């Protein structure tokens, strides 16, 4: 019999995540055609490695892992090592940035609402982030994976997930601040310090 129930269940389940995988593909590759290729390849790999998938474990995370690895290995010029090394520096900058902007100045209660005024800019800034940071934000905030699942996807310990996510979010914040500044949504006093951070972050 061509179908057996386990295989069929696996496939039906796997197909459900196509939308999510495609969106991630677009975010990774920034190109619809390449995203299609990436997703197709992901499914090909998933179907042919179906036996390696253990039932009861997280299929969604497994598929995202395949897509992520395929992207890193085949679609991205820089290899995985670079991805991990991408933003290990500058950690202190973010801490300083928080201290500068939040703690010492006793942030203007208005300023936290500047995000809302940014509108569509968040997508642009997200696209401009380094791949490693972008991934973390996509996993955590778009797909709402748990830290454990993200650890499975990027094949790293939970601690790494936390610190990477922390930095990714800080990086996005810094960029959004910089954009807000350009738009005149932030006070100048704050701006100077943020600007300095943004410059360092790159």
């Amino acid at each position, binding site marked *: 019999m061509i179908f057996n129930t386990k295989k069929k269940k696996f496939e039906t389940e796997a197909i459900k995540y*196509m939308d999510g995988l495609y969106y991630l593909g677009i975010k990774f590759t920034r190109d619809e055609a390449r995203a299609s290729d990436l997703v*197709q390849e992901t499914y090909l790999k998933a179907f042919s490695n179906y036996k390696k998938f253990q039932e009861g474990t997280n299929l969604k995370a497994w598929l995202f892992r395949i897509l992520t690895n395929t992207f890193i290995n085949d679609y991205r010029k820089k290899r995985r090592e670079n991805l991990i090394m991408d933003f290990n520096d500058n950690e202190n900058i973010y801490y300083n940035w928080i201290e500068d902007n*939040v*703690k010492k100045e006793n942030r203007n209660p208005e300023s936290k609402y500047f*995000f809302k005024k940014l509108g569509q800019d*968040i997508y642009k800034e997200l696209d401009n982030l380094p791949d490693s940071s972008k991934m973390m934000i996509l996993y955590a*905030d*778009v797909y709402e994976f748990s830290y454990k699942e993200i650890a499975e996807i990027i094949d790293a310990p939970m601690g790494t997930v*936390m610190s990477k996510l922390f930095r990714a979010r800080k990086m996005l914040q810094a960029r959004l601040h910089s954009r807000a500044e350009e738009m005149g949504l932030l006070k100048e006093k704050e701006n100077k310090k943020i600007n300095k951070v943004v410059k360092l972050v790159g």
Partner: protein
Amino acid sequence: MNCKTFEMFLYNYLDNETQEQESFELEVHLEKCQCCRNLYNYEAEFHNYIKSKMKEKKVDVPLDLKNKILSNKKQFHINYNAFSLKGLASISIILFSVVFLSKVSMGYSTVSENYGADLLKDIKIVSNNEVKLNNWIKKHDYKNFKLLSFDKNKLKLTPLGLAFNKKKVIVYYHYKGNKLAYKNMEKLVYPEENFKEFKVKNKTFFIKKSSDVSIAVWNNKNGTSSCLEAQMPESQLKEVLYSLK
């Protein structure tokens, strides 16, 4: 819990990734520290902002991609079940080995079950040799199945697994009493309930109701199955089946 650890755990807290004890300590600290309250307000706002913004954006998967993946799914069946071979390049080898195998060891039903339009499509891509392919199809059809003497463009008896209708290739698979059929090239799945059972002289057929193209599926005595596709209404196809038997 101090300000430094609060900061460290803040995202975990916002992501609901903290233990009960940690959450409690964070909340206690939040109560008494103005600095961290500001930080919390800011970060919570940012957190909500990202989540809400990102959820708004949805992209539709192109139909083309959906179809490709569904056909991969079937190709996976073909490769996985029958030969455990991977990669398109090897498919051309399958073509020859299976023709050989079908003669030697495999029963007909295995061959027909595992051969799908996608495989054929892929062979076309790989070998780009339609003549060879068409010959193979003819040979395959001829050797295994009786061709009925109807207008060939309109009606053709084909194995379960392959149905040819001019340029169109349609694939049918056995499933649950042979009632379910997959129309491959157009990526249509006919649900089981679309097929209605009817009998002609003790033989059971499953026929799909249609005013345009009708399909009949049935089991043969030797364990194989057949399907018949015709560009005619269901009632007319029934008449054909009556006249056949």
